[in-house]
């Protein structure tokens, strides 16, 4: 069943994928940044075996949050710079469909970077991160992060000092995701049984934020 809402979402995702396939701007920047960040952390923290097991989930999520900032900034800045955001708003589709499309695209890119980080960190930190629990947490966490991230990036893309404003706006309100995702990842790595509770919390927060974003997106793009 192809509703207009779904058609619009898919069209935006297809557009973002096509643009990305041609320019390879977003993914390459995010991936290189993530790689650098993981390396810098391993030098900066000078971790021994035990400290590594403790710190690795924090390293993963801090890296992902900053990588997503880069991606979100670019993804929404190119919309408003090239005038595409205005064109989208002229089209007879609902604002929440536009949000869902951009959100899905961002979640796809950030999720891809996150999933690529897992085998990389497995090698670099010598801890098996390619475990089902960690993979699920990474996917859910990036989806949640990108929901509020897409909304705030749409706001900051329309301001003067956007590169500076997005981290300031996003980091404090993204803390609930960080708190739960780090604990879920850590628990899944240590085999602690309560990690599923943290994952459920993370999923719950994600649902709340996605719904709020869908409801409120119209107000941040209105003229």
């Amino acid at each position, binding site marked *: 069943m192809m509703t207009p809402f779904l058609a619009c979402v898919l069209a935006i995702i297809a557009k973002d994928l096509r643009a990305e396939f041609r320019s390879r701007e977003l993914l390459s920047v995010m991936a290189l940044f993530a790689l650098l960040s993981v390396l810098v952390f391993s030098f900066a923290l000078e971790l021994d075996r035990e400290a590594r097991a403790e710190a690795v989930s924090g390293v993963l999520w801090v890296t992902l949050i900053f990588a997503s900032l880069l991606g979100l900034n670019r993804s929404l800045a190119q919309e408003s710079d090239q005038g595409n955001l205005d064109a989208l708003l002229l089209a007879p589709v609902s604002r929440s469909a536009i949000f869902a499309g951009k959100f899905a695209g961002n979640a796809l890119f950030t999720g891809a970077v996150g999933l690529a980080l897992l085998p990389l960190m497995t090698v670099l930190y010598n801890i098996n991160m390619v475990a089902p629990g960690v993979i699920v947490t990474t996917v859910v966490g990036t989806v949640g992060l990108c929901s*509020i991230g897409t*909304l*705030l990036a749409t*706001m*900051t893309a*329309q*301001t*003067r*000092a956007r590169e*500076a*404003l997005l981290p*300031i*706006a996003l*980091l*404090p*309100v993204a*803390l*609930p995701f960080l*708190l*739960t995702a780090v604990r879920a990842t850590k628990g899944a790595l240590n085999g602690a049984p309560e990690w599923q509770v943290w994952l459920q*919390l993370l999923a719950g*927060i994600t649902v*709340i*934020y996605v719904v*709020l974003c869908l409801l*409120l997106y119209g*107000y*941040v793009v*209105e003229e």
Partner: protein
Amino acid sequence: MPKHVELDASPQPTLLRALTLLTGLGFLATLYLGLFVAGTDIQQGEIQRIFYIHMPSFFGAFTAFGATVVGGMLYLARKQAAWDRIALAGAEVGLAFALINLLTGAVWARPIWNTWWTWDPRLTSAAVMCLIYAAYLMLRAGIDDSNQKRNFMSVYGIFAFVSVLTTLFIIRIVPETIHPVIVGASPQNAQGSFEATSGVFMALAPSMLLWLTLMPATLIWHRYRLETRREALERLKFQALGD
């Protein structure tokens, strides 16, 4: 001749004057109750009296942040600038209260916990609350267009409140806190708890009432008037430049 823009120079409404007086007197009265009437804590001594400001300021911050959410939602629904001014005033007053809460807590913790600050979940969540509203004010300062600013900040105010609530919720289900709970059961490893006797409640209840209602309401009203004048001044400047 340039057209004249009226700067709202009306004197304070009588109700506001009365509220200001009442709040001032109420503050002095609760200070008196907390400093002189309530008994000295047998273990902690005089420093325990800080509690009569510490806890009410935390809850007062919520009244103010509540004004930010309600103001934001009503602005989105009705598009009247007045609601946005209330939202801004709420964020500033709430941030001030949250900072009072943090600072008084640190002063109390120095003798009782032997440290100004510790990364206890409760302290962390209080710090997060301050950071979120500091970000609110930063973001607000970064947006030029005033209609856009009002829309964006109304939306951000809603997310700020949701984040504060979810952070508090997440933090509360983590049991490893050393922060005492005075009203209700204290956690097992709480440090520096004291008994909530009738004397404590006698000093706490009026203070709580004051910080929850009069204090934020009066301050928000004053800040609202200030913002109204600032916006009028902006328009005046804009017009002067245009002429």
